[in-house]
């Protein structure tokens, strides 16, 4: 056991973790932030995607100890005072989610894409999301959501 300090959604936490504890276990089990999901054991599905220091990371593939001193953002940290982030809002208006299980990872990953590339093409979106699996939507409306959010985020930046 070691005590690490990690900032999650703007709040600092000192947590005792085992060396083998994964970042996703730290989030879900220690901090009870259960919006981040685990859908596989081979880093394929991306349901556990969070941001570590602003970059999207599969939290099942990173040790909690590696996040010591880092700033982590989870799906719970994306909305501000109950107002959905434009990406979250676009998933709602474009029906980009069905069962909701892959959604947190999709939203976190897609938001980083738009932050990096404010005007992604449909092809850019489809390739960027290759690390996130969805079984419900056929991706059609996820892609539509991301493109719609990108437009909204461009508007918001002006």
């Amino acid at each position, binding site marked *: 056991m070691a005590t690490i300090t990690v900032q999650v959604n703007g709040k600092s936490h000192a947590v005792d973790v*085992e060396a*083998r504890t994964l970042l996703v276990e730290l989030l*879900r089990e220690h901090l*009870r*932030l*259960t*919006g*981040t*999901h*685990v*859908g*596989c*054991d*081979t880093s*394929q*599905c991306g*349901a556990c995607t969070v941001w570590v220091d602003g970059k999207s990371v599969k939290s099942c593939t990173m040790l909690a100890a590696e996040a010591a001193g880092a700033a982590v953002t*989870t*799906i*719970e940290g*994306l*909305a501000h005072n109950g107002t*959905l982030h434009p990406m*979250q809002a676009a*998933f*709602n*208006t474009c*029906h980009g*989610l*069905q*069962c*909701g*299980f*892959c*959604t*947190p990872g999709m*939203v976190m990953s897609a938001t980083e894409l738009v932050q990096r590339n404010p005007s992604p093409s*449909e*092809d850019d*979106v*489809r*390739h960027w*999301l*290759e690390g*996130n*699996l*969805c*079984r*419900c*939507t*056929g*991706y*059609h*409306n*996820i*892609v539509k959501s991301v493109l719609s959010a990108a437009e909204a985020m461009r508007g918001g930046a002006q």
Partner: protein
Amino acid sequence: MSGQGMGASVTRKEDRRFLLGKGKYTDDLVLPNQTWAVFVRSPHAHAAIRKIDASQALKAPGVLAVLTGEDVAADELGSIPCGWTIKNKDGSTMVAPPHPALALGKARHAGDPVAMVIAETKAQAKDAAQLVVVDYDPLPAVAHLSAAVREGAPVVWDEAPGNVCFDWHLGDAAATDAAFAQADRVVKIDLTNNRVVPNAIEPRAANGHYDDVDGRYTLYTTSQNPHLIRLLCGAFTLKVPEHKLRVVAPDVGGGFGSKIFHYAEELLVLWASKRVGRPIKWTAERSESFLSDAHGRDHISHGELALDADGKFIGLRVSTLANMGAYLSTFAPAIPTYLYATLLSGPYAIPAIYAEVKAIFTHTVPVDAVRGAGRPEASYLLERLVDKAARETSADRVELRRKNFIRTDQFPYQTAVALQYDVGDYHSTLDMALKAIDYPKLADRKAASKARGKLRGFGISTYIEACGIAPSALVGALGAGAGLYEAATVRVHPTGSVTVFTGSHSHGQGHETTFAQLVVEKLGVPIENVEVVHGDTDRIPFGMGTYGSRSAAVGGSALVKAMDKIVDKGKKIAAHLLEASVADVEFADGKYRVAGTDREKTFGEVAFAAYVPHNYPIETVEPGLEDSAFYDPKNFTFPAGCHCVEVEVDPETGVVEVVDVAIADDVGVIINPMIVDGQAHGGLAHGIGQALYEEAVYDAEGQLLSGSFLNYTMPRAADLPNFKVGNHVTACTHNPTGIKGVGEVGAIGVPPAVINAVLDALAPVGVTHIDMPATPEKVWRAIRAAGGGAA
């Protein structure tokens, strides 16, 4: 209530909690005093279990118990039952072997659970599971259908010689023989329907708790039908009366059939929680899901289509082997029989059909319903056969279909395989889909692809499905152990807001929105004043759950029936308040009005009067405004349509790219077009996945080679195009909503369209057959074998 009722693309009420990360899935729940379970699973496909030594595991930190099949037997837990019994051709009953929750004596598939380790933390349980020493004596195993039916094959169950679970048939053999005797042409096909893994992105999980104060069990589980699990647990496995067992299926992250069934793990966490005196939680890891969730499909079929000189279909003969796996899952025997052979007429008028199905045990994970369940296998066989018939008789594949469709003036249409289709319009959906994909310009697109070194192919499939399952008396006569109605309760609150309690279960379908839209339409209540509750046996009167595209058609109909009772009672209250006769009171747009006058009471005013009955017809009408209904369907519903696909094949690599998909479905009356389109999209991805990417590959010894997302190819965003989805509505004639169902259309309709497109693309190089999935390797080899492409 314009803009929120039937036909409105209302954004979903349930989205907000999911988007904020506030969904409540089974694994999110931690109960006070929570403990964890991890299962020790057989690494062998077939092995005698000589001894299980748990002594080291029991000494490991945090371990509370290690339980085995002997403990299950000692406590007399019931065998996990199969809910459907099939009769053999000779009238005898299928072989239904026992299915102990933990293997006893023998393990029969890789992944069969043999011991359960319970500890204070998941990590401790996982560590200790590695210390359980199981002395196996590996035995010969058989995984593939073709091997399992061979003389001298290893036997899964002694009571099932030749590994035959049942040998069943449907249709008129003599009439079919007579049709073939008169045939001008007979077209034959041999094909497989590849085995698939359902892979909902949320792995299965269960959390069981026994409360020794009130002697009551609670199970939180990833289920599509919590009441069914309560029924099976209560009556067959755990053997406790229903009032002592609560089953909650909270937010569930996709099902696709795999979360219908009663699984060992949910039974075991309940049972063991009483033994250890604490709640026990288990969550599958993905590789564990591959070895424990029921798989789908896995058929080998031979089909023959007889045509007369005019190209009319006059007879169909089908023989199928269906893999059951090692144990019979809950609905397994129904899938390759009543959900498969009954659909073999497709949208065509075929006067004589005969189908034989042999279900075969193998040393593999049980096989049961996966999205479509039997109907994809039927449409795949038929649509491949029809395309082959077009090629072999030099007929146009579109015209051949058109010529053989059941016409709109032929409904109701009795097929040769037991079903009676109530309504449909197959010509219109065909025309719509062809227009959407711009079929007349196909030759130009083929030429453009060719100029880029690609082979372009067009594929079509005209399919039908039977869903909205199902009339209870009918399925009972066919071997079902349960009824297939649905229940709903409508509670109108004193100020006129409404809570709906439905037996349907939403695990992505959006019932909290669509069922609320039914209420808006019927009662005129704004959608924000409607709450839809599902998934908890303590809150819902009863329910059969969600599968077979039945929620809106059956659950929605139950809801409408319950609301009819509310409206009728409200009329009596309103008549009293308005001093009119009940017969003169009309209800529309949320208002009770005396016909032909402007005297009216709002729905809210009537609700308030029902709960504050000061001025009230108390002698004849009870206070309160709440009612329930059960709806038992009169028939299946029959969604149908046409799916068109264009692919480009790279002849150098064998890579198939789906470049266009245009579909036109008739799913009956639509509540929410946005959600209906979304259901079609998901089904299409699932169906394209089966056609091009997905396959549960077992080696000859019964090891699952594609047992994780590393080697089982799930369709990804970049693998798929945007989908063109259209609808042409004919309303279901026998339910109050006109709804047919949409959840499975993509998975049923599109796989044959994809393969027909691949074969169309490969026709110029001489390839005439390919099995799913059409992987690059398979396509590349087929091109080379046909002598095409570079050496």
